[in-house]
Every structure is written in structure tokens, then in C-alpha cells.
């Protein structure tokens, strides 16, 4: 069973992904609505994957990637999940060490497959 952290300020996205991923019984899910609670969750336990929104109320997702890589020195894979489709944002995400990028609106099947693929590659 893999541990997945969902970081998104949108309650609907969090609930939906939690329900959808938990259904497969392959994942245990934790969720956070802002950077602060995501940092606390990451300090308290290890995760196999982080699903990360870029626009958060107390900062942006890039800060979170930075925190995971530079402060916590973890190589936990990060999948960015955002409505920002701009090429520059996608490129920056990859440059900072994100494993994959999912655009909102998203397909639940696509999210599942991408998570599976990223975890398999680890």
C-alpha cells in the first residue's frame, strides 16, 4: 500500500481524489489544503507520492517542491495538478523536479494511470 499526499485548496478536488484513490485499496491517502499543513504532514510521515496543486492560499506549489527537495532532502515523486496550462509553468515544474503534470479539468482514469506509472518507475 502506497501513501499519497494530496495538496490542494479546492475541497472538491481533495475529496474526489481521496475517494477515487482510496477505492482501489492500493493507497492510503492524506490531504492538506495549504503549504503549512502539507509541510507538517511531510514532517510527520513519509509519503510515496505527492499530488500537488500550484495555487495554494499561503504560497505556490513550487515552494513545496523546493521544500521537499532542499529542506527535507527527500526524493518523493511529485505530480503537479493544476489549471495553469502555460508552457512556462509546466517547464518550471519539471525543472524543479516534478515527475509528471496533470491539467485541470482532469480525468480520474488518467490520474490513476499517471500515479501508477510514476510509482512503478520508482
Amino acid at each position, binding site marked *: 500500500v502506497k501513501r499519497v499526499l494530496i495538496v490542494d485548496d479546492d475541497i*472538491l478536488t481533495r475529496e474526489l481524489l481521496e*475517494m477515487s484513490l482510496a477505492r482501489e485499496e492500493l493507497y492510503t491517502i492524506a490531504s492538506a489544503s495549504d503549504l503549512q499543513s502539507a509541510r507538517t504532514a511531510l514532517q510527520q510521515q513519509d509519503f510515496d507520492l505527492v499530488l500537488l496543486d500550484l495555487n495554494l492560499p499561503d504560497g505556490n506549489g513550487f515552494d513545496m517542491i523546493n521544500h521537499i527537495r532542499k529542506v527535507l532532502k527527500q526524493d518523493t515523486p511529485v505530480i503537479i495538478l493544476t489549471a495553469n496550462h502555460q508552457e512556462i509553468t509546466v517547464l518550471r515544474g519539471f525543472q524543479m523536479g516534478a515527475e509528471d503534470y496533470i491539467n485541470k479539468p482532469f*480525468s480520474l482514469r488518467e490520474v490513476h494511470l499517471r500515479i501508477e506509472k510514476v510509482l512503478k518507475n520508482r
Partner: protein
Amino acid sequence: MWRSAGDRLYELVQLLILSVEVVTITVLAVIFALRGPWRPLTPTEQSVLLLAAVLMLLCLGGLTLYILVFHAISKRIERAQQAQYQLWVRRWGSVLLQDGPPPSGPLPPAAEKALIDLRKTLKGESGQKISDLIRSYSLEKRWLKRLNASRPDLRLEALDMLAALALPETLQPVLAQLHDPRRSIRSVAVRAAAHSLAETPNDHAALECFLSALCSADLSESVLEDALFLTGDAARYLLIGLLVMDDLPARLLVATVNVAGQLQLMELSPQIVTHLGDPQPEVRSAVLQTLVRWNYVPQSATEGVLKCIKDPVEAVRVLAVRALALIAEEGAVPLLWTALADPAWLVQRAAAQALLHFGRTGASVLKDAARRHPDQRAAQLAVQCLLNRREFQER
């Protein structure tokens, strides 16, 4: 809902309190004016004064209490609504993921909001399921009916909701709103229609309808651009359709070219570069801007770009000079040398910057210009550009 009611009540309370204060102060002012301010107060006058002070205190206290109670109630209602919303998200989630039975209609507002938000969040198979649920409750019919409302705010709300629902069958009635005399309605309607079209990018009949509506509607360039972007996968087919049309209005042609540029649809370059000779300067500018954005000038466009160097419109010349930096060095450099002496400073600066694109050759041409260009301003600009470049390299 409760906020607008609370605001209205607040205005009423404020009006009441102000009226009481004004009346009291007026009465006091009249009494004191008639009796003369130097005479000592009688016991009756003292009680009137005290009563007025107490009344004002009560008024201000009442107003403060109202504000505090209003905020407390607002927070409570918000929390309750949030909890309801979360509950409905879970419920819809279980309908979607576990194929549970959908709740029977009519839906409460929180359920409807959660369902519409799900539609905005999901695409693919799950998005389709949500669309079917929306249809089963006939939500779209209610909003379509509201398009006939006489109040424009209700129609705008309906268009917003129809945009969120993005159902292909709402395309036609939404497009009909493009003939509305109000610009705001037309702008929101075209966006709503674009959302619907994005759901069926291969439906040729829908594409045709959208195209003809775009051509006949009175919409600004930015709204047209926005709408074309929102059509998602359908945008490419629309742009192809628009570019082969004759007598396209300039603003629509500009929007088409700009969107093709931003979507990097370089395969449309043969159709786009034919508009380099368009009589409208904004169209010529848009084409040149697109070439610059692509960082690519096709062979067939070279002649057109060269013609634009002598364009009477300054903005067109600036873009043509920038596009020159993308064609072969031997053809571009002499023309850039000439452009350095353009009467417009912006064109001169663009020419100097374009020369720097050619690396050492461009820099040596600039050095040459700094020494012996017949136009003094061109020589000075060349010096400045070289200095800036050195500063940049040192940094």
C-alpha cells in the same frame, strides 16, 4: 442570499439611526438658538440634553451590535453551507465511483453547486457521467429558460452556468444570444458557446454554426481571441475555417492570427502569411507578431516581410524589423542597416536589437554603424546597444 438581505437591513438600520440623530440634533439646535447660549440650562433643558445623548449612545450601540450579530450569523451560515457542500461532494463521488443510486430531484442548492463544480473539474469518462447526471435533473433546461429573462443580470448568470455545464446541446440557444444589443451578454455568450463546442470538437455542424456566429457577431478582438482559446481541441479546425474565408472582419482575422500564433500552429503559416499584404495595418501587425512569436519566417513570407519594412505604419515596421532577424543573414543585414536610419526611434532600436541576433556579424555591423552611419541618431543608438550588450556580457 443572506448577505444581500443583511446588507439591505443594514442600510435600513443606518438610515433609521441617522434620521433619529438628525432630528434630535436639529431639535436641540433650535431650542438652544431660541433661548440664547449664555443663559444657564433649566432642569427641563438638561433632561432633554441627557435624553439626546442617551438616544445617540443607544443608536450607536445598536448599530455595533447589528454588525457583530450579522458577522456571527454569516460565519455560521457559511460553515453550515460548506459542510453541506462537502457532504454533497461525497455523495456525488459515491454515485460516480461506486455507481450508487443518484438522489431524487429537485436538488437543493448545495447539491447543484457541487454537481456543477464537479463538471468543471472532471473530463473524460467521469466528466461524461456528470453531464448525464446534469441532464437527468434537467438543470440545463432551467438555465436555458432563464436566457429569456428580461433582466440582463439573470441572463448573464444563466450564461455563466451554461458555460460551466458545457453541454453540446446548449450551443444553439447560447449562440442566439450573440445578437443581443448588450455587449456584456454577447461576450459572455460567446465564451459559454466556446465551452460547449470544446466538448464536441469533431462535430462539423456545431463547428459551422460557431464559425458563422463568430463572423456575424459584433465582438471585440480580445473576446474573440478568448473564445477561440476556450474551444480547446476545436480551435485548430476553427482557425483553418476562418483563414480560408474571404472578407473576414479585421478584428476576427487579427484574433485568428494571434490565436494561431499562441497555439504554435505553424502548419497554418501558408494561410497566415498571405495576409501580410492586408490593407488593414492591425492585420499586418498580427501576422508579423505571429512570425516573431514562432521564431520562424517561412520562405514564402520573406517578400511580404521585406515589403513591410517600408510600411507607412510605425508599429508594422517595428515588427517587420524584428521578423527580419529570423531570415537569412545576408538578406537581412543590409536592410537592417537601412532601418537603423528609420525616422521612428522604435524602428531604429528594433533594427539595432535585430542585428545583435546575428551574433558576431551583427555586432560588427553595429560597430561599423557606430563609426560611420550617415544618420547621427543611428550611430548613437548603435553605440548604446553595444554598450548595453557589453554590460550584459560582463554581468
